[in-house]
């Protein structure tokens, strides 16, 4: 009896301890996680910051001094460049190690290694898209450049020095939650992060949808609904700018535009506009100080830990300040005492799909240039935590990987809706490139010539690089590797057997569109068309709608004596040009006789609305639901075939149809017997908008306000509950300069005032620390949400005694 009792109680105790030490599904090992000696409690950082710290670190060549300001931004002063990038790696890892690890794993298709079988399909997708393949090619090029190689290796050594200083109890909390360990950092990880930027900003494609539309409606209708130049535009390079170069001849287009797509059964989705970046520079002629001002707010899907990491880097003659990407050396957007620069996304067509004809089911050869050509097979091996290793063969043609053959394509994986089966992917992100050099050269740029030189090394994702210097030069250059194409090449799926469809080299870097010191005394970009129609090359047929650009340019044109505050005010401008364009017509078409009480109240509100998407505007909520539903009602019947994925025409084309073609047959719903008119749709959509709001929030009240409907917040990178931000009641809209939506918005706002003493201001939605247990995890979010900026401390030297430095670290070799 006693023995049974002893054995039974021991068994219970043992089972309990084992289960508390085991990860069960998504639940971390509870004993390990709650253990205050090594579990999450150790990540509860003290609010008190030590004023001084001395560290001995193996691998440093000399000494480094790091000053932290009140937001824990590091200002790094090093004896040499090696130590500088070493210290950048070390200190970035201190704050962002898990984010760096997780994002690289995500990019490389290695998440299954740490989260198990649920990530297998995602990992397959990343690998089949050639993310690692591209990163490998990039590293090859970077490693041939001694200076870049040294920078990447110093950075990696710094990250690793930090990792090796950690005991398991010191690991960031997410490692404890997911129950895995950080691994050593390698230069390819930096490349993977840059590829991730390409995937986010230059990884979208429409050609599958476009080809389906072409097949259904033919070339005339397709051209009419999806024109090659918008109805209204305000291009980056001012209209009428002359091109002072002799262009290369354009490659000839093949005679027949292929009707060669096979439709694949997937769900149609409305094209989401994911970007909304702005930048501009005004010359001294327009500023109060007589020196240029530069502003930039790149928009991305915002997450915590924050996308950007603020940093100042000084060594030798260089002293640069701004934001970096955790995982890559240097400053990506920033300034030094002589110059400032910023970026917005170009949205060039640098991703094309080619129909591949294989010889037989073995897929060892494909037809190209009138002969069979060998396929290269790349085998991807995915290690799965708690599961069997998966191997996946990817067929590479000279175009690139065939992302999915029909046998390889998974069902129910929404991420791949726009990927045509059996097509090879030609993507600029697969090519080797040395983009890091561009940033390291901009970090040291003193003048316009340095800026132009730096840009020649840049490949992808193509960006509109805005520039201003203390010498009173301003400039903007849509820049990157733009393939030389015939007009419209890649608007539709391409026949992969015809050499005429290949990319024909590139547009020479110096012939990329650019403008310096234009007569209007400012330059700007907001993801819109790069040029007017006189530019001799084809870069893409569609860019973001012109609305933000129009608002920016209208305001800058009349601005005099500009200062930091006037530009900050513009970054937060919630005025909608879209509403200005269509709201008056919408309102005039509402049949006010037929409205019920709520509809009448809503109608009064939206008629009087000032067209600002401010947080407290109810009119903004009504308008947003109204025009979105209008587009849906207009196109769902024509382009919403669930068997053949298509897309809707652009907002610009919709506005044009609406204003100038009131009798268009597209207003009619083809599924009904009667004939619907523009006015029928407007009224139906209006009722829909009011009904939705009423169903969601009850009678008209403050709940209807735009900030509440939009419901912005910043989620955690791995969507861990409790690690994201709370709801942020702010304004903004995709059609306003402050292009804010639920989880997408300005990932960094910066304004630089050049002059004898450069002054800069900035903020991002998050904080310097990546630790949810740190007071510096989200300390800038409220400032950001309120549209305010912090002054960016820029120390002239390590002995510069500016106020606001709260801690100093001295690093020396051990």
């Amino acid at each position: 009896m006693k023995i049974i009792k002893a054995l039974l109680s021991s068994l219970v105790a043992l089972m309990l301890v084992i289960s508390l030490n085991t990860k069960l599904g998504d639940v971390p090992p509870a004993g390990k996680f709650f253990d205050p000696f090594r579990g999450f409690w150790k990540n509860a950082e003290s609010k008190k910051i030590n004023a001084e710290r001395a560290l001995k670190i193996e691998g440093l060549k000399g000494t480094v001094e790091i000053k932290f300001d009140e937001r824990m931004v590091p200002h790094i002063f090093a004896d040499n460049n090696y130590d500088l990038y070493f210290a950048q790696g070390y200190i970035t890892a201190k704050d962002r190690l898990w984010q760096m690890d997780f994002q690289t794993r995500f990019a490389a298709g290695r998440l299954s290694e740490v989260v198990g079988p649920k990530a297998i399909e995602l990992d397959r997708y990343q690998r089949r898209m050639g993310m690692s393949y591209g990163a490998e090619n990039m590293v090859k090029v970077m490693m041939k450049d001694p200076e870049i190689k040294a920078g990447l290796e110093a950075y990696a050594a710094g990250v690793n020095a930090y990792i090796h200083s950690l005991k398991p109890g010191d690991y960031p909390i997410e490692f404890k939650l997911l129950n895995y360990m950080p691994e050593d950092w390698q230069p390819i990880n930096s490349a993977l992060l840059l590829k991730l930027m390409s995937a986010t900003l230059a990884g979208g494609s429409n050609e599958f949808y476009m080809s389906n539309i072409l097949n259904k409606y033919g070339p005339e209708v397709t051209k009419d609904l999806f024109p090659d130049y918008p109805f209204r535009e305000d291009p980056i390079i001012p209209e009428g700018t002359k091109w002072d170069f002799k262009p290369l001849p354009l490659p000839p287009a093949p005679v027949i535009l292929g009707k060669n797509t096979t439709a694949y059964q997937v769900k149609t989705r409305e094209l989401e506009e994911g970007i909304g970046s702005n930048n501009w520079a005004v010359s001294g002629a327009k500023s109060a100080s007589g020196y240029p001002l530069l502003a930039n707010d790149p928009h991305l899907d915002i997450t915590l830990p924050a996308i950007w990491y603020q940093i100042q880097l000084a060594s030798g003659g260089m002293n640069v300040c701004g934001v970096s990407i955790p995982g890559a050396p240097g400053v990506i957007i920033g300034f030094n005492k002589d110059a400032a620069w910023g970026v917005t996304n170009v949205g060039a067509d640098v991703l094309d799909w080619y129909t591949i004809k294989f010889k037989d089911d073995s897929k060892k050869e494909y037809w190209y240039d009138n002969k069979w050509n060998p396929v290269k097979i790349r085998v991807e091996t995915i290690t799965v935590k708690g599961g069997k290793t998966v191997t996946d063969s990817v067929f590479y043609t000279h175009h690139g990987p065939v992302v999915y053959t029909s046998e390889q394509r998974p069902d129910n994986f929404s991420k791949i809706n726009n990927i045509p089966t059996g097509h090879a992917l030609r993507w600029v992100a697969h090519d080797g490139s040395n983009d890091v050099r561009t940033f390291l050269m901009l970090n040291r740029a003193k003048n316009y010539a340095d800026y132009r030189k730096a840009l020649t090394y840049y490949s992808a994702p193509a960006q509109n690089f805005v520039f201003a210097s203390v010498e009173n030069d301003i400039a903007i250059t849509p820049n990157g590797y733009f393939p030389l194409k015939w007009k419209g090449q890649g608007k539709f799926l391409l026949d992969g057997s015809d050499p005429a469809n290949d990319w024909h080299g590139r547009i020479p870097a110096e012939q990329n569109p650019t403008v310096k010191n234009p007569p209007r005394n400012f330059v700007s970009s907001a993801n819109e068309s790069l040029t007017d129609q006189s530019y001799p090359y084809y870069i893409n047929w569609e860019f973001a709608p012109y609305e933000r650009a129009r608002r920016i340019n209208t305001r800058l044109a009349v601005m005099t004596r500009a200062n930091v505050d006037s530009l900050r005010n513009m970054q937060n401008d919630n005025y909608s040009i879209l509403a200005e364009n269509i709201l008056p017509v919408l309102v005039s078409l509402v049949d006010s006789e037929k409205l019920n009480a709520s509809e009448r109240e809503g109608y009064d509100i939206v008629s009087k609305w000032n067209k600002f998407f401010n947080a407290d505007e109810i009119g903004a909520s009504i308008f947003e639901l109204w025009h979105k539903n209008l587009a849906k009602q207009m196109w769902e019947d024509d382009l919403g075939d669930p068997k053949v994925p298509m897309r809707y025409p652009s907002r610009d084309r919709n506005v044009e149809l609406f204003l100038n073609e009131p009798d268009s047959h597209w207003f009619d719903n083809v599924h009904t017997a009667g004939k619907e008119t523009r006015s029928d749709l407007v009224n139906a959509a209006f009722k829909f908008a009011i009904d939705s709001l009423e169903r969601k929030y009850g009678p008209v009240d403050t709940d209807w306000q735009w900030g509440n409907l939009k419901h912005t917040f910043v989620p955690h990178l791995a969507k861990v509950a409790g690690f994201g931000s709370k709801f942020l009641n702010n304004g903004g809209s995709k059609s306003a300069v402050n292009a804010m939506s639920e989880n997408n918005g300005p990932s960094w706002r910066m304004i630089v005032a050049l002059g004898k003493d450069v002054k800069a201001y900035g903020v991002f939605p998050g904080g310097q620390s990546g630790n949810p247990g740190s007071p510096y995890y989200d300390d800038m979010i409220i400032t950001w949400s309120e549209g305010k900026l912090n002054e960016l401390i820029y120390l002239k030297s390590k002995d510069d005694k500016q106020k606001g430095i709260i801690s100093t670290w001295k690093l020396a070799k051990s």
Partner: protein
Amino acid sequence: MLFLIILAICFVFQLFLPWWIIAPLAFGAAFWKARSGGHAFRSGFFAVFSLWIAVASFYSLRNGNILANRVGSLLNLPETTINWAIVLLITGIIGGLASGFCGLAGYYFRQALVVPEKARG
């Protein structure tokens, strides 16, 4: 006494070893000192319960309970201002249960192995 022994040795050993070291420690201490099953469990439970809450509080208080409140949301606790305290309590219970059951096992093990003095004759 047993309570203090477990608390002290768990504190010292946890400085160097993973959390599960509390299992053999509670087992051994109860084996040695426990007077009854209830005594073994109570001492084991409250020793590690107190130890873990004390150490966790040390980290949490200097942190202003930022992380404890976030972990509260992670655990899907309803939004309150005392979530950090609930998370502390959960921490204590997890450690306490592991230690308590191991203490109990230690006591019963001794009961099974050691022949009562009377029977020795």
